[in-house]
Each structure stands twice: as structure tokens, then as C-alpha cells.
């Protein structure tokens, strides 16, 4: 199947647009989350045994390619392809692969919401972390498309989170709530009331409806409270994220510039305080494509 003009030109619905700092943030986010979740395939007790018989792996919405590149570095027999809607992310990923001599990793621009330019039954493993940014009404269809390109017996794994952390910081929580409300106003949530993304409970059903079986799930939590090992890196990533969110939050009308700046300043103080406590929850759900 060839890439259609429609699929490559579909609108990028991501709420942070064209910021110079976004690429750096996502690079750092990938590192933090892979480490914080315990590795590349942390839900499997023996990832080496799992991928030993695999050849082709797809990384969906791969961003700057950190997961893919780490995977081929760890398992050189794999051929990993990644795609993302953002040309800058793809350029960076390809540049990284080139300078590291990782000629078994390649990246290109494609929209996870559209039809995918891969043959049927092609990949042994399909990885999708944080697809939540694609429109709500096409998420399930996108999972079906991932199933189409996965070979029978192959694995699809989806990882999502519900909120950008739960903390004891009042201003941080206000900003987090504003973000969820803004996403709801923008029409991109599965939650009935906008108090979460509402996505994680649906992942298993999406995989089942797409023809997967043996569906399993594993939760992860990163503790980035003051004094925890992950405090500093997660603080940096989320602090930058909140700053970059400002135009989106103001645009959809959940805050004003003055209120945002006041809350952000207070949240910064909270995050630096000795008694700050915060947990970041994730869920990975995976299933095997049935042979039927």
C-alpha cells in the first residue's frame, strides 16, 4: 500500500506546535521514560528471548527515535522502522542513526492516524508509546491499522498515561487540571468529564477488537518526589512541557496569561520544595495478533 497524499498531509493535532524546544524536550522525555519504566520492553521478563526470533520492528509515532535506536543497539539483528508526523523529529532520528552507524534503523514521516504505508502481516513487533495525541475518534481505527501490518503471532504494545503526574503541589495540580480541560475542549479526550485522558481503560478493548488475543497489561510508576533519583530529570522535562503548553491553554480559554504565569511560578516553587511528592503512572497493554 502506498502512502496517500491524504495520509501524509493529515493535520498534526498535537497541542505544542513548532517550538524550538519541543524536540529537545521529547528527546529528554524518551530517555527519562525508558529509564524510569525499567528498559525498552520492561513488561517482559526476558526481552532478549522475546526478540530473538523477531526481525522487523515498527516504532509508531517514534519522535526523535530514541527507543528504536536503543533497541537496535541492544539487539543488532533487528531491523527497526519508525515513523512520526513531525519532519524535524524524523530528521533528527535519521541523523542519529547515521552518525551511530545504525544502518538497521530507519525513519520517515507518516501520520499514525492515517493509512500506513506498510504491507499486511509485515512486522513482528509494533510499539506505540503516547499515541494519545492523535484524534480520539481515530485511535481505535489506528490500532486496527497496526494490527493489519503485524504478522499473525506478532505483538502490538501500547503505552499511555492518564495524567502528567499526581502530586501534592496545589499549583502543579491546577495546571495539570487545566491541561486536561483544555484537551477536552479541543475535543481530544476519551474522558466523559475531562478529569483524565480516559484512554488507559480502553486499550485492551482496542487490541481485542483489532484481532489480538492473550492481552495483558502492566502498570509502571515513576516516583519523582523531592530527593528521588528521578526528581531532577522529570522536573526538567515537565517544567519545559508546562512552559510550552502556555499558548495552547490560553488559546482554548482555560486560563489567562497572567494566571498561567502566576501558577507556573508557584508550581516551580512547589517542585523545588523539600516536601514535594509526585508520582507518574503509565500502563503498557500488549496482545498477540491471532492467526485467524
Amino acid at each position, binding site marked *: 500500500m502506498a502512502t496517500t497524499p491524504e495520509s501524509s498531509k493529515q493535520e498534526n493535532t498535537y497541542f505544542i506546535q*513548532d*517550538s*524550538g*524546544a519541543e*524536540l*529537545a*524536550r521529547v*528527546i*529528554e522525555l524518551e*530517555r*527519562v521514560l525508558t*529509564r524510569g519504566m525499567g528498559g525498552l520492553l520492561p513488561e517482559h521478563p526476558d526481552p532478549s528471548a522475546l526478540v530473538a526470533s523477531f526481525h522487523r520492528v515498527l516504532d509508531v509515532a517514534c519522535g*526523535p527515535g530514541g527507543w528504536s*535506536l536503543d533497541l537496535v*543497539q541492544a539487539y*543488532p539483528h533487528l531491523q527497526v522502522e519508525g515513523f512520526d508526523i513531525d519532519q*524535524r523529529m524524523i*530528521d*533528527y532520528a*535519521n*541523523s*542519529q542513526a*547515521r*552518525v*551511530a*552507524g*545504525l*544502518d538497521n534503523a530507519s525513519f520517515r514521516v507518516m501520520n499514525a492516524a492515517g493509512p500506513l504505508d506498510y504491507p499486511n502481516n509485515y512486522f513482528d513487533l509494533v510499539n506505540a508509546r503516547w499515541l494519545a495525541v492523535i484524534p480520539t475518534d481515530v485511535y481505535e481505527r489506528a490500532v486496527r491499522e497496526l494490527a493489519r501490518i503485524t504478522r499473525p503471532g506478532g505483538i502490538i504494545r501500547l503505552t499511555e498515561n492518564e495524567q502528567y503526574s499526581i502530586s501534592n503541589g496545589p499549583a502543579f495540580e491546577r495546571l495539570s487540571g487545566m491541561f486536561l480541560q483544555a484537551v477536552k475542549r479541543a475535543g481530544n479526550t476519551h474522558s466523559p468529564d475531562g478529569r483524565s485522558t480516559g484512554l488507559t481503560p480502553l486499550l485492551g478493548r482496542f487490541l481485542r477488537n483489532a484481532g489480538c488475543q492473550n492481552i495483558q497489561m502492566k502498570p509502571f510508576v515513576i516516583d519523582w518526589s*523531592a530527593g528521588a533519583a528521578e*526528581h*531532577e*530529570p522529570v522536573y*526538567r522535562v515537565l*517544567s*519545559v512541557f508546562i*512552559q510550552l503548553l502556555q499558548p495552547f491553554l490560553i488559546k482554548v480559554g482555560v486560563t489567562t496569561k497572567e494566571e498561567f504565569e502566576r501558577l507556573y*511560578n*508557584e508550581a*516551580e*516553587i512547589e517542585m*523545588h*520544595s*523539600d516536601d514535594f511528592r509526585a508520582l507518574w503512572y503509565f500502563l503498557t497493554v500488549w496482545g498477540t495478533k491471532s492467526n485467524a
Partner: protein
Amino acid sequence: MQKPSSWRELLASIISNPAERERIAAGAGVRPITLTRWSNGESKPRLQNLHSLIKALPTQHQDPFRELIEGEESLSSSVLSGEREQLEEIPYKFINEVLTTRASGPEVLLFWAVSHLILQHALRHLDPEPVGMSITVVQCMPPVYDGKIHSLRERTGLGTPPWPGDLEHQGMFLGAESLAGHVVSTGHYEQIQDLREEHMLLPAYQVEYEVSASAHPIMYTGRIAGCLLVSSTLPNYFLSPSRTALINGYANLLALAFKPEEFYELEVVQLSLMPPLAVQRAQFADFRQRVARIMQQALAAQQPVNSVQAEQTAWQQLEEELRQLSLQTM
């Protein structure tokens, strides 16, 4: 001696000398055990590994080695193709991305965004295996009371194992006693190929895991902002001229992460001696709380400061406290 029938056989004979094996491994940017695995067929080198390996071999073995590779179909086309320069260049598309980030990002995130783009790229480029590397941006502490720079600070950094991935919160102050201090004082790059040996010509102390080091000034119009400090777990890792040229290139790119006012004339760099890491760590324990206090006080005075400004103030307080400590123990 019988002529080797394969490149693996030739490699095995060359690396039968342990010292030579270690030297070639460092030159090729791989672990010594990797060379052994290639030679006995346990694993296969990647394209880029082969380019680096050939360059690291003794000159008399390079052509025979190439000829033997030509005879192995699965390797020859990639090795002999025109991709040889890939390791030695920073791709233009990446440089353009750095320029775009600098042009469009918010000012408060300039350093963070540009330096992270560059460090991540440099780490994959300089340590593709990976064999163990740390890469750190060291910045001049701005003058406070006498117009002079008295210390440097490791502002951000990344690593591959055995170093942790994120080195930012491990940053310390460096002074005249350090390799970085020497480089910032002179404006010229310096390398130490084996910190385990005596090296009285250059100031340096060995940090955990570090065996060789290369420090390169970050400059703009003849003024200096700091240096890029790269450390490896392997000896002689920085003997390769192409690797040195790459680090110089990344150091030059890093100049884009700084504002013009963060560069200083070399004459104002007058570094003090800074206390050892253990002493510094004790002082850093309440760093985040210091920052929170500074922000709270500024907010109470209705002159709020952002976290970057508050951190800078906290680092300046710490610098002065450490200098006083150092003076007391001299």
C-alpha cells in the same frame, strides 16, 4: 607465517598481543572483547565499526585487511562504498536543526534546548558502541565582585553506562586543579589519553570510571563561555584525529547554546582551587530548597524570578561558600 585466509583470522593474529588489542579497541571505539568476538565469528561488525577498525589497525595491515573484506560479499559493498565519511562529519541537517531550535525557542529555554539536542547527538556519534562515555558542558561562573571568573560549573551532561544517563544533578564546581580549568584558562583543547598513568604536565583528577579525557573550549569571537568535557572508560580513546575534530565541532556548535554576554575575555579567567567532590556534594544537599527559598522571597517582594534566575543565584551562593571553604583548608 601462513597468509590469513579471512579478515577474522588476520584480526585474531593482530590482537593476540593484549596491549595491541586494547590500543586498537580504543581507536575503533569498541570494547576489547568486541574485537575478540569479531575475530572468532561470534558477532559481526557494523559498517561504521569497520571503517574505524581499519583506521585503528597498524598501517601495514590496513590494505591486506581491506582486501580480505572485499572477498567477503556480505561486508564488502558497504565498506567500499562512499559512506566512509559518516563518522567524521556532523551532518548538515542536524546543524540546521540546532540553528532552527536556537532561532525559534523561548529565550528561557535556549541553553537547555540547544545543549540537549547537541549532547544527545554527540553521545551517539562519539560512543556508538557504546563503550562508556560522559559528555558534559562546563560553564564559567559569572563574575560577582571583582570582575574575575573564579570557578567553572558542570552545568549539564549525559552519559552511557557505567555513567548514569543524566549527569545534570551530579554537576560540580571545577577550578584551576582540573583539565577543564586549564582549557578555559588557555582557550586551547587538551587531552589526557590515560589518567591511570602519571601526567604531571596537565592538571587533572580522575573521576569514577574515567580513563581518558578530552576538553574543548566553547568560544565566540575569541571569548570563552566554558568547555565541552568528554570522558571515556577506555585509554587512548581520543588519539584519533577524526574523533578530536568531531569533538571540536560539537564544542563550536555548543557556542550557540549561550548568550553573547556569557562569553568572557580570557584575561578575566582567574580560577581558584575548588574543594573535592565529596565536600561539594555535602554543600549541594539543599540546592533545590535554596532555589525554592529564593523564588519565594522574590515572590514575597513582588519581584518574581524564574527558576533559571533563581538557580543561578543559588549556584553563586554555593560558589562563594566553597571558595571560602577551600581558602580555610589551604
